[in-house]
């Protein structure tokens, strides 16, 4: 049942010495934990909006399961209330349109084919060869070319909770992108630090399903990060089952059990992150699910799952309104300046230009 996974990748490991400086930051504000309680006096949670960055990094038909993983998570967070405009979905290959797919335009995460996870309203933001380490880091840090549309941007603020889900092939300290390059755990930790510095998140939950996944979050040093990984260093993450009709594995073990848990969660659910961390014990996963909570200042047993996987907004009832003088509609009803083609003075002098076809990065 083991899936092809890269255990040893010829990669030079140099000693990482740069980031020990800011490690103490995490403790500085643990003393503000008492403040969190008082948020509840007026709002239910400390965040006002939710974002999700869901990344599948591997291409080719035999990696069908990674696409199914990421689309399943996409479906779950959307069901729990994060709108498409706040989900950045990166899918490295188009399995639905793969010539080997016997059921074109569908992707299933189960051999029973209950749910087509590539349903009617999947909005892929980065697809195919756009899924690169550079683009991924750019999305996280916000350093995108000016011509990038809103839907491809992570426009989070200091009150955003972000879910980052990654799946693909990894090794000790890196995750492969597109069989061509890889993101290292140090780069990822740096990217999160830059996000923290610019107040781009309130709390961030990092979830990764890959071989030796734990190594990806070991280098994290920014505060308010919570992480879970499907396997320890030295372990492989395994796939769940094969669909004989497709001839490939359709989902990974950890994601399979995580989804099974998420399916039981409803938008108003009180399930906590601590319960979620117990998902997929060793006899199910074969690999050991590993978590990291030291950077996170709240207690995971009090942290709701929907703080990351859903969008339960804070609301405030409007008790009183300002009073405005009533202004009646003028009888001639000519407020709108509406005009037809002929009656309007056309300003012919304005010259329109097309935006850049290919976004170019200014160097």
């Amino acid at each position, binding site marked *: 049942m083991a899936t092809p996974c890269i255990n040893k990748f010829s*990669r030079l490991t140099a000693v990482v010495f740069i980031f020990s400086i800011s490690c103490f930051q995490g403790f500085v504000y643990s003393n503000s934990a008492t403040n969190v309680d008082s948020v509840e006096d007026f709002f239910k949670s400390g965040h006002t909006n939710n974002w999700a960055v869901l990344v599948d990094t591997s291409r080719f038909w035999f990696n069908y399961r990674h696409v199914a993983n990421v689309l399943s998570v996409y479906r779950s967070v959307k069901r729990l*209330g994060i709108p498409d*405009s706040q989900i950045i979905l990166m899918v490295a290959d188009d399995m639905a349109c793969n010539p080997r797919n016997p059921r074109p335009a569908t992707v299933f995460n189960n051999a029973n084919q209950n749910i087509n996870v590539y349903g009617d309203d999947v909005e892929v933001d980065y697809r195919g060869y756009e899924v690169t380490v550079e683009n991924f880091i750019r999305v996280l840090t916000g350093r995108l070319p000016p011509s990038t549309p809103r839907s491809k941007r992570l426009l989070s603020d200091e009150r955003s909770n972000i879910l980052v889900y990654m799946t693909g092939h990894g090794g000790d300290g890196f995750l492969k992108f597109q069989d061509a390059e890889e993101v290292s755990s140090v780069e990822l930790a740096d990217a999160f630090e830059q996000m923290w510095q610019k107040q781009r998140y309130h709390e961030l939950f990092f979830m990764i399903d890959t071989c030796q996944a734990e190594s990806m979050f070991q280098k994290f040093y920014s505060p308010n990060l919570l992480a879970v990984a499907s396997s320890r260093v030295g372990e492989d993450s395994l796939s769940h089952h094969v669909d004989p009709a497709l001839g490939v594995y359709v989902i990974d073990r950890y994601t399979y059990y995580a989804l099974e848990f998420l399916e039981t969660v409803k938008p108003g659910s009180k399930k906590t992150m601590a319960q979620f961390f117990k998902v997929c014990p060793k006899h199910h996963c074969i690999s050991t699910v590993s978590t990291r909570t030291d950077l996170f200042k709240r207690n995971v047993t009090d942290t709701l799952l929907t703080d990351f996987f859903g969008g339960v907004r804070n*609301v405030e009832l409007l008790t*009183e309104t300002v009073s405005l003088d009533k202004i009646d509609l003028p009888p001639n009803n000519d407020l709108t300046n509406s005009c037809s083609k002929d009656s309007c003075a056309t300003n012919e002098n304005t010259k329109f230009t097309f935006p850049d076809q290919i976004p170019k*990065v200014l160097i």
Partner: protein
Amino acid sequence: METITKKETNENEIRTHHIAALGIGILCVVIGIPLWWKTTEVYRVSLPYSDIQHLSDTKIEYLIDVDVIWATDVKKDSLFLPDLALNLNRLLEVKQHQGSTLFSIFRVAVREAEKSELLAIKKSSNVAELSGVLASDNVNKYNIIITQESSIISQPVVASNNNVFLPYNNADTSGLSAQIKHLLMDIIRESAVFKSLEAAQGLRAQRPDKDTMRSFRFHPGFDITFTLLVPEPDHVSVTWNIEHGLKAYLEPLLDSLKGYTKFSVASQILYFISLGGKPKKGDNFYYYSEQDLPHVINPLESKLGSHASNNPGLNYVVGVPLKSRSPLYILNNKGERVPSNSFISPRWGGILIYNIEGEGANVSTPQTGPISLDMHKIMEVFVTQTRLLLNIHHQWMTKEIEVLPTGSSRLHQWEIAGWLRCRCVENLVTATTTLQSLAQLLEEIKNIVINDEIGKEVESAVASIKESKLLLRNGKLEEAFLASKAAVDASELAFFHPSLLELLYFPEDQKFAIYIPLFLPISLPVLTSMFNAIKWFRQRRKVKVE
């Protein structure tokens, strides 16, 4: 003889070999290595690091001009006014806000009212006329006018143009100055200024605060979208005159902030879309409780469409309930109806549930025409929400106070001043922290390229911050705000510039992997032959000496 020459030529040849090897070796070391070093260097314009570091240490001081005008007929001895001035100056001395770098300075002048002013106050027959007295354009100057208690001024009256009319209650100078101080602190939104400083400094020091959590941080532009949901156009046709509503009720507010931030307003009508969630049934009405409301927004959000720009968006939704679910109310935790029937979601917008009245009575009679919604009622709700979401709304600590209405949604001068002051301080702190985190990142991550453009932006940001602080200290509020806005723009541009990432995904350890296969085959023979040459020359010198 022959063998000697052979030996000599042989030695000469070896000598040439070694000299050549040494020459190439030296060439590699002297020219090659510096050239390689220079060409692979990360390009970085030198930034004013020490200036950036000092930015957060320098004080943010805001100066406020106060004129206290004595406009009563009560005769006091000649020492009364100087004594009041002295008292006020002592009370309102430079104040530091809870150990932060924020200071407030008041410049107080006390004078007697001129005859014309006295006359004007006396002439006003109602409070509304008071707003015309002492009109000034200076947003940063407050006039406290002490008048006789009369039928129209029985409690402090705040007019829209920074004037406060204070009825004189025969207090002594210290009592009066305490009263004035209290009013002043309230009208300048002193606590809000400090809150925006804290909020901009990040979560680190921040105490959670409802106003800052609810409202947007300053942004150069906002997109406002009004959406009308008509779930059953086949049963109930609904329309609204949104152009009129916007022009009459919202535009005065947006005009008040013209020049400070840009608003783009759009509206849409969505058919066959109803409010999400499942309303509960009460006696002959339906309702949402507060816990249901988050789930009303979520399903709607995907239908609202997304904005084209990257500005934060304010979404305002008017929802007409389904016929089978009306009337529909929002109940608070005590089970009472919320009078406005609307709610806010922080940093998102608001939803208003609009029940079409009298609709249940004549269900069977077909509608003659579309029902037009009452824009006045709708816009009252949304103007309030806009004021809350942009953090303009003033919360008075003083209870017994009369605020003269502006009549429209136009902002009071003191509201604009308070908003500008808060946003200016917020922007200064935001720009400073942005620059400082950029500097810190550059120190931590060596691969970041800083090109000339970013260098220029950083320098202009630093200059703008300094300028803004100077202007704020001199009481030029508007100019200070505009400078702080420029500082935020420049610093954001520098921080988020795409070119910062040119080399970032090329970690240090990978450099070795690239250079070793390149350099090893070249450097090994060069170095060994150099080593041999040196050995050979040393040996020869030793032979000669012997």
